[in-house]
């Protein structure tokens, strides 16, 4: 739900859900009357001859696209890309745009019923989850063509449990600690590089009358980011991934260390954080009543809506190190969005060539830059993207992520969806934040018990 960047008026979802149904019905009706396209005609056309990742040549037939980029700027970006795809291939994808959160809530039913040929989704566990259920089409042949354009971190994020590739990475954003340069310079603060420095800085900010850490966890997911980074840096990438996938236990003393460390930070949080949205917390940083804010790069969008001039004053640094063996991993959350091909699309047999060509189109830096130009929150993943066109903050983000040896996706993308919702991990983390002094053994056991009771998907 890091994706639920704009929760806003939540019940608005009711309306869009109805729209989804409507669109779904229209889409389904459209599909049934589609002529059976002879794939053979277009298969030769889809094979690129020029640059390894460029798509050219004429495509025939149809292509349906499930689009969760519903915000105005994001939707404009996708439309630009579709127009460019049409210019290159002559094929105009039939787009079915669904509200971002609604799309996520309904993903199970969507993929299990009559999905579109191609859809946008998240890499990592969330991709593997649906690949395991047989709801995604492997694209190893396409990956062989485009893999040269991706670094190892991105490549790993799209490999399923069966070692097949299921997605093309299209954008990402890192989680870092944001601050206002003017506040740091006038107060004489320096960027902390160690955990001790960070706590010292927090104490100093507090005496200076600042809220050291802006924090708003009303939506439940922001706290997950802090759990992730503490667990990654204290216990390492392997333990974190094991914990997310069930190989490690929540009752492990290593998890206790995470919560004990976190407890030292809680006194520095914004008063009333459990009743604040992440946007309200962000505003306290903009208004200079808070000193730092740990969130995804997308927060710059909120800064811009509050005070456009403040964006130039925003800077960030990666989470400070604990001085242990895991420092070298420089691990952090940097969720990657991908484009995937569904398995149950009623027209997929006829559309597969087009679907792969569309995914391939998204694998180029040129395409991804169109999305970046629509919204600076989408950092291109392709190696051939023209990074000189990225703004200063984005370039710094690229630098931090490419320096990281290990990248995770974010708690709610790295673990099963029924473990990461409002009445599961979000509630547990709020419970801890409310009473950090509680009996952690009992608390951790309640999380493990909850995990153990979830239905077994593979069995």
């Amino acid at each position, binding site marked *: 739900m890091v994706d639920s960047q704009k929760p806003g008026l939540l019940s608005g979802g009711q309306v869009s859900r109805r729209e989804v149904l409507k669109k779904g019905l229209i889409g389904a009706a459209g599909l049934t009357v589609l002529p059976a396209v002879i794939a053979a005609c277009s298969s030769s056309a889809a094979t690129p001859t020029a640059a390894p990742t460029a798509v050219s040549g004429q495509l025939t037939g149809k292509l349906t696209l499930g689009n969760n980029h519903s915000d105005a700027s994001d939707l404009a970006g996708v439309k630009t890309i579709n127009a460019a795809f049409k210019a290159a291939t002559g094929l105009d994808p039939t787009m079915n745009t669904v509200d971002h959160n609604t799309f996520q*809530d309904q993903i199970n039913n969507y993929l299990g019923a009559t999905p579109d040929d191609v859809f946008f989704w998240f890499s990592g566990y969330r991709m593997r989850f649906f690949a395991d*259920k047989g709801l995604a089409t492997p694209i190893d042949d396409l990956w062989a063509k485009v893999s040269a354009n991706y670094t190892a971190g991105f490549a790993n994020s799209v490999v399923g449990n069966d070692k097949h590739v299921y997605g093309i990475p299209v954008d990402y954003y890192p989680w870092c600690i944001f601050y206002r340069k003017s506040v740091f310079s006038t107060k004489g603060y320096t960027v902390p590089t160690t955990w001790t420095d960070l706590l010292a800085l927090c104490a100093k900010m507090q005496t200076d009358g600042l809220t050291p850490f802006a924090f708003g966890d*009303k939506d439940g997911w922001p706290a997950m980011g802090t759990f992730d980074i503490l667990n990654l840096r204290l216990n390492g990438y392997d333990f974190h991934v094991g914990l997310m996938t069930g190989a490690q236990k929540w009752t492990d003393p290593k998890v206790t260390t995470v919560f004990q460390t976190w407890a030292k930070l809680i006194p520095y949080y914004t008063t009333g954080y459990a*009743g*604040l949205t992440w946007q309200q917390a962000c505003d306290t940083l903009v208004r200079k009543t808070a000193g730092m804010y740990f969130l995804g790069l997308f927060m710059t969008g909120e800064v811009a809506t509050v005070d456009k001039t403040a964006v130039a004053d925003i800077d960030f640094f990666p989470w400070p190190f604990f001085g242990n063996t895991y420092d070298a991993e420089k691990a952090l959350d940097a969720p990657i969005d991908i484009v995937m091909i569904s398995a149950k699309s009623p027209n997929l047999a006829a559309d597969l060539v087009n679907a792969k060509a569309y995914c391939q189109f998204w694998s180029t830096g040129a395409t991804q830059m169109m999305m970046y130009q629509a919204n600076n929150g989408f950092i291109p993943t392709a190696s051939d993207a023209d990074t000189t066109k990225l703004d200063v903050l984005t370039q710094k983000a690229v630098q931090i992520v490419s320096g990281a040896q290990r990248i995770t996706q974010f708690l709610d993308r790295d673990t099963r969806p029924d473990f990461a919702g409002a*009445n599961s991990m979000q509630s547990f983390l709020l419970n801890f934040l409310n009473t950090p002094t509680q009996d952690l053994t009992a608390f951790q056991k309640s999380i493990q018990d*909850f995990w153990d*009771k979830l239905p077994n998907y593979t069995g």
Partner: protein
Amino acid sequence: MSKLEPQALTPAPTTVVGARVASPRKRRRYSLLSGRDKILLFFMVGVPLAIFLVLIWGMTLVSVGLAFTNWDGVQPIKFVGLDNFTQLFTTYPFFWPALSHNVLWLLVFVFFATPMGILLAVCLDRQMRGTSIYQTIFFTPVVLSLALVGFIWELQYSPLAGNGFIDSALVSLGIVSPANAPDWLGNSSINIWAVLIAASWRHIGYIMVLYLAGLKSVDPSLREAAAIDGANERQTFFHVVFPVMAPINVVIVVVTVIESLRAFDIAYIVNHGKNGLELLSTLITNNSISEASLLGFGSAIAVVLLVISLVPIAIYLTRVMRSEES
């Protein structure tokens, strides 16, 4: 009355017999329905009935069936017996808080919001000046969509850092220090009360309008008689008006119980029903129609809510049937 009842019942068999005797005539009356009438009847009674059976009872039965499975919406349905229910009642950490919040909701509505609505109705029923203005003011929250109600109260309840109205007012009046300003929606021990105030704000207006309509239908001569007999306002209401209002009172009780059981919107708008705002309805939503897709488990919670709902429904129906008999 009870003595009269047997007498009232005795003529009944004769009328039934009479009806049987007169059946040829009755049959002719039935045949008065033209073909068009029958088609019309089919569409106006048959179709809604079919929709009702399929969409209400069909869905209910499907939901009850799903409660015994661990279906996720995609994989083949597997029956798990009573597993969902044992988990719900024993280890699931959110069930008992949710149930107790629903009970609290009911108690607050029954002992506070509904009586307040009745009180307002009684006050406004007296021919006071500007009564329609007051009625409009109290009824406005009912007209507003719940999304808007949630939004309005979020602005009131936001913490100080979010410029919430109540906390800002408390601090600027010097009642609390900024550090101690209550987190109305985030503090898990007070947020249910904050939400209940918002819900009551709406419920009071609803009950007021219902009751006011009832009061208008009370025969004024009853009040006159009571006044002549020397009853004061309070006595008139409790001994004359309230008993006469019995049918409305039953409606009010049923509405109150239903509103408490289906409580959902405001808690869901605030934080999706977590951190002290768990309700049975939000648990159902978060489990069934979210990415979690625990349809079986969510259905089990829905079945619990159904069973609880059946109690007031049964009481209501038996009352209605009894009053029809007498």
